[in-house]
């Protein structure tokens, strides 16, 4: 990964946590149905959106991700009945908190995409990618950001 900088051909790097039963299957369906969507997303499959720990999301921003998407089953469809419902409260608070502290609102996004919504998955990814592209490279928490890599007088 190169140092995130203002280079012209910068492409946003987005990390997506997809729940295995719905959103991951939706992404699969988008692929098998040859639906085109931006290639900026790298997927991590999780058993349930409830498995995603805020630690993972903020750590992703820290390691240089320009955007993070967490996508799970629609409320009521969760394979584990309530995983996404617990997650919804956690993410609601996390997103408002990060925004309050000054992280740009588009950086961390949440969506519900079911296994049959291949098209919907492509829409969500396109929307997130464009939002993050508009925001530019992530600097605020990114350990690789220019401002932090500059040799610091550490004493």
């Amino acid at each position, binding site marked *: *990964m190169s*140092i995130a900088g203002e280079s012209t051909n910068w492409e946003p790097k987005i990390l997506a946590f997809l729940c295995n039963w719905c959103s991951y299957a939706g992404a699969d369906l988008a692929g098998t149905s040859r639906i085109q969507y931006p290639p900026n997303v790298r997927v991590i499959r999780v058993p349930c959106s409830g498995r995603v720990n805020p630690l993972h999301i903020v750590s992703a921003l820290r390691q240089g991700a320009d955007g993070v998407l967490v996508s799970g089953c629609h409320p009521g469809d969760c394979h584990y009945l309530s995983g996404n419902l617990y997650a919804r409260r956690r993410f609601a608070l996390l997103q408002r908190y990060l925004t309050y502290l000054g992280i740009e609102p588009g950086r961390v996004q949440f969506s519900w995409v079911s296994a049959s919504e291949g098209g919907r998955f492509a829409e969500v990814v396109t929307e997130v990618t464009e939002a993050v592209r508009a925001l530019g490279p992530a600097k605020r928490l990114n*350990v*690789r950001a220019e401002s*932090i*890599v500059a040799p610091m007088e*550490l*004493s």
Partner: protein
Amino acid sequence: MTLSCEAPVVAGMISRQALEEALGGWMQSWRVIAPVRQDGEVRFQPLDEPAAVAWDYANAKHSAKGVYLPQVERLLTYARTRDDLNQVKATDPPAGPTMLFGLRPCDARARLMVDQVMVDGVCRDRYYAARRDGTVVVGLACEHPRSTCFCGAFDSGPYDATGSDILLRSAGDMYLVDVVTERGAELAKDLALEPVDDEHSQRAEQAQAKAEGALRPMERLVGIEAALEGLWDDPLWQEISAKCLACGTCTYLCPTCHCFAVEDRALGDGGERVRAWDSCMYAGFTAHASGHNPRPDQASRWRQRVMHKFSYLPENVDAYGCVGCGRCVVSCPVNLDIRQVLARVWAAARTQAEESAL
């Protein structure tokens, strides 16, 4: 046993104004670090203009340790490639001499103790040595010790010249200049000194007597290592550490605490290996990868803190790991006062002696 130096020689006296002029000159050839008051707090910082020296400060909350042992110091930088996982380049410690101006006697002594561990010990720490060898100290005797100062307990005091190359002693409108080392003598040549008249030398003596008198009486600590001998399993460690929050503030602010961690930090395509202050108050300090921890609780960590300062360091470097500056007393969030801990040590040793005498 404690750090000491030959008796200093009075070279003359000088006004504060003349000293500030000399400082202007010194700032050309030294990076001068002095106590500077900034938004209500005094810190040791590079001096940008001589008038900024906070002459009448009690003692800075943070010791000057950050100058000779920075909180984070970059040891190596590395590039990360697939096959060569040791493409490293050592960073060069900052060359250029440093002048520690206005250091209180306790901080000056503390630095000498850390020198013995970091440089005169078995192996030589190149980064620390470079900073030390280039440093000269102009000490400022302490006219107003605080209620938490206990330098007197080590047979030292607010006018102890140990660790300074020059010690300034206030005499009202003038400062007496004591030369302590050859380097101090060299430095004194840059000062427009006047001979010391009786009036000022008397005033300085009175100020010294007043300062030494202001120290809170406390049981002498020299020799406490003997008292610590039989106390390994004494319940006092459990009791004193019950309220400790294990936050390590005492070790961060302590001018003699020198323990550090070595960490790798990824930065862009490469990274850096840094040394950063660490604390024996943290569980991770001694935790093994297997999960075993020889110091599993706060009582064993507090025992290590006291034993290291008052038993192991005297045995290994012939100096206590404490100079009585009182910073840990002032800044502890739960006011766990090391003076009370040491009083408990003396008391426990006495009861033990009485019991064994029965």
